[in-house]
């Protein structure tokens, strides 16, 4: 098992004829993802890396068959339209790769997704990759790299930083520890599947034995994971690193942040609550593999 993506899922690429859409379709296909259709309005009938292109999500479903996931590679101002189209067509999972999607657009997407029981990863995500199985988004850049860098195993990785998702997965793999799935939740303050949602999926995934968390300052994501650990909802061991210690200075929280979070969002606060909840806190990035290894050995 893995979470969110494996080789059985049927994938659609929205914006498949664009620069990123084209390149990443190739990566996904070569890595083992079943990309069964693409769509770009007005470009129906074309093919991209042997994937048929349709004018709309609905048309893709009618002609290519059911869709489990849609990966969105359209310019940020067009993301809302593309996402709502996929939600209406009944696609159960979206991966929104683009950066800089306006906040209120994300809130509207979230509203429609909730109402229709649709989940979305991102925006501003590098994607998700299950080693040896399949990838969504752009993680690894090229299939040959992704195969070489990431190995399959018992660690579920959830990260707030895209590049760091790859680097933790790589350093873990180098030290002989593989991954069930590695997820970049997205770099924005509001995302569809934040840490708590991903951790919940890992908790329910039989293959995942240890959860590695890369947190960052801002938002309430890490605090909510700590609450889930405290309440007993999460029983698998969590290894966590919180980045952004140096960036503390110059990063200011407005009145709003102070009122709404009541001390949440800071580096110290996140480290403290996770530690109290029983997480294995790592203070130096390079020690993540070592700590993860010893936690695995203790199971």
């Amino acid at each position, binding site marked *: 098992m893995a979470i969110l993506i494996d080789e059985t899922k049927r994938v659609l690429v929205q914006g498949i004829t664009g620069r*990123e859409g084209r390149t990443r379709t190739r990566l996904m296909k070569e890595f083992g993802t079943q990309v069964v259709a693409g769509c770009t309005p007005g470009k129906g009938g074309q093919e991209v890396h042997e994937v048929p292109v349709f004018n709309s999500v609905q048309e893709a479903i009618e002609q290519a068959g059911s869709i489990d996931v849609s990966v969105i590679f359209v*310019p*940020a*101002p067009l993301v809302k339209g593309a996402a709502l189209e996929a939600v209406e067509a009944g696609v159960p999972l979206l991966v929104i790769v683009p*950066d*800089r*999607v*306006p*906040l*209120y*657009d*994300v*809130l*509207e997407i*979230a*509203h429609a997704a909730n109402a229709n029981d649709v989940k979305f990863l991102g925006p501003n995500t*590098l994607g998700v990759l299950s080693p040896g199985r399949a990838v969504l988004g*752009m*993680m*690894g*850049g*090229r299939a040959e*790299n992704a195969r070489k*860098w990431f190995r399959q195993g018992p660690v579920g990785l959830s*990260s*707030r*930083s*895209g*590049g*760091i998702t*790859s*680097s933790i*997965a*790589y350093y873990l793999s*180098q030290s002989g520890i593989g991954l069930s799935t590695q997820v970049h939740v997205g*770099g924005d*303050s*509001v995302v569809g599947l*934040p840490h708590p949602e991903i951790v919940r999926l890992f908790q329910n995934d039989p293959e995942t034995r240890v959860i590695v968390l*890369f947190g*960052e300052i801002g*938002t*309430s*994501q890490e605090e*909510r994971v700590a609450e889930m650990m405290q309440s007993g909802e999460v029983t698998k061991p969590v290894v966590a690193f919180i*980045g*952004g*210690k*140096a*960036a503390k200075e*110059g*990063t*200011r929280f*407005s*009145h*709003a942040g102070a*009122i*709404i979070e009541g001390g949440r969002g800071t580096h110290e606060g996140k480290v403290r609550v996770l530690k109290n909840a029983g997480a294995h806190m790592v203070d130096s*990035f*390079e020690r993540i593999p070592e700590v993860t290894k010893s936690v695995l050995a203790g199971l």
Partner: protein
Amino acid sequence: MARLFEYQGKELLKAQGIPVPNGLTANSPSEARKAAEKIGCPVVIKAQVWSTSRAASGGIAFAESPEEAEQFASTILGHKIGPFEVKTILVEEKLSVDREMYAGILVHDKVPGPLLLFNTQGGSGVEDQSGARSLDIDIVQGLPQSDAETFLKKVGISDSLNSKLADLLVRLYKTARTNEARSTEINPIILTTDGELYAADCRIAIDDYAVFRHEDLGIEIARELSSPPTRLDKIAHDVEFHDYRGTFYFIQLEHDFKKGDGVIGFHGAGGGGSMMSMDALLAEGFKIANFCDTSGNPPASKVYRAARIILSQPGIDGYFASGSGVASQEQVHSARGLVKAFREVGLDVPAVIRLGGNMEDEAVEILHDFTRELPAPVEGYKRDDPASYCAQRMRTLVDSHRSSKSKSGIESAKPPENPYQFETVTKGTVLFDHALCADCESKICVKSCVPQILKLEEGLPVLGISREDAAKGKCTECLACELECSRHGRGAARITLPIPGLD
């Protein structure tokens, strides 16, 4: 977040029908005097700066007469509050206060959705109070008057004030939604002794990502900055604004420093990796001149411009580039961008460049191959070299480097005899001196062109596509033709990438 000044925010509130005190802005003491005359004294004078502690810093004063207003203005204008110089003041009628309250529209990352916060008490220090109550707002439905009234009843406002205040909250949400604000706060809302409600102060921050839909707001830099943008910050922002490919983010952190102070020009890739890499530099005892992030698969030209901007800080002792270490983006583009910048300025401080990830072998080869003639060493590293090790190398190189007087890294080229040129998507120029190309056997430019848009015509390199298509972005500014030609050809290819304000 792109913050607005109080007077700008009040314009937005007014446009939605929320009463604000009668006021005028002034940029000089005499303007302040005229404003006070027009409004009628007593007035309050408020410095327009992004600070939460204006009152405590002497940024707010009351005046009983136009003369006093002028006098206060002359002490406040030009004065600094935190890092911000006061350039504008707001002169407003003084209200007779019966009661102060707080209201804000924020975005809750957990719901996720807009959130109304309300406190029956307002004024400075509200962030420390636990009395604030909240109401989730449905993004599609908005905030109906009836919901606002019910909410206010729950917080104990049920008298005649209820519907009037509810109306203000409804308009406050409309202000937030219409302008796509991440936060819209009124602190305080004032109830005057004659029973009227006013937004006496406000703090609005527009969503950076939505600024393009609100050009009328005149936001110069769509980012939350803890100090005013510097000349370089503005130049960098301009580069990013005019090139949608990938991401480029630059902020100056240190301002007055000179060679020998241990300040390093920093060039990261990706937020998490950049923070980690800066931590590594700090651990080696360095200071960081600037934060910079080029990521999201930027073209070589963007990385080049970023590097030129970083290098324009004369006091840096070294150049450190490092991201997550295992990048998905093709690192050759970053390598070419860096190399072009280093060669053009004749790099005279050591550089440590960590280019781990996709195409790292080719990237590091380019980095080493093209920087051998430079006055200072350039070392390239890959995914198996941790940031901490690279920072140690930076330390070793900086400590042992003696800067040479000669700044001539690469000879400047002669004027072209027979130029063939075309424009690129960022107003750059690609030029081939066909007089030199005629003798070239390698024709390396055509072979190395990443998007493959060049062809040979009578043995000379020309565009294989229309000039319009090249200028629309088919020429990706990969910089390969220029670099490869300098090595294997005749040095006939020259790419000029303007950086407005820097050159």
